[in-house]
């Protein structure tokens, strides 16, 4: 996994990266990055990631760096 900051995130999004929020569904429902899908950490498996394209970058995020 590669850690990225905002400028690199922008470049990845421009290149078609898939955004994944790993917070619980309630937090995702309240607010999330545009276009992000929600796959809470506890549910992350083959079934819940079936919709992701393995040929495209995946960017994971949660609330902050702490």
């Amino acid at each position, binding site marked *: *996994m590669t*850690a990225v900051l905002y400028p690199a995130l922008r470049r*990845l999004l421009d290149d078609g990266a898939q955004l994944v929020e790993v917070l619980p569904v309630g937090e995702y429902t309240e*607010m999330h990055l*545009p276009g992000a899908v929600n796959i809470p950490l506890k549910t*992350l498996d083959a079934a819940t990631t079936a919709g992701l394209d393995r040929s495209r970058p*995946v*960017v994971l995020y949660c609330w902050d*760096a702490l």
Partner: protein
Amino acid sequence: MRYEPRAACRLATLGFTQVYDYVPGKVDWLARNQPVEGTDADTPTIGRHLRHEVTTARPDELIAQVRARVARSAHRFSLVTTADGILLGRLRAAVLDDTDPTRAAGEVMEAGPSTLRPHEPTAAIKDRLVGKGLTYAIVADPDGRLLGTVHPGDL
């Protein structure tokens, strides 16, 4: 504990080879005044009320030049920035009025003024500004890039 490292390991075992971690996350995105989606997406924040017509100056500019631009503007202060918009300091009205006009802005500016982030809630910031008798506050992103100013009358 952060969730992403564990999520990334699981993705790797599932065959994903291009996995990235946006370490500073949602807080960083919001602090850059970027749009969001969701049920709380329309929560009032100061980022929706920024004024962008701020008089800026370069640190090597003469006070005389800055003073002239401020005189033509709607405000009585100037913000000193780099060419790409990083906030360096502030020139208050008193400094502009009383300083030798041949001095450079960077020599007399108030370095590193306090800033707010655009995702801060409107009501709380208005209360803070009014309570402290402030007529404006400076808003910048996490990299120190000037985004604008916010004024209690606009909130």
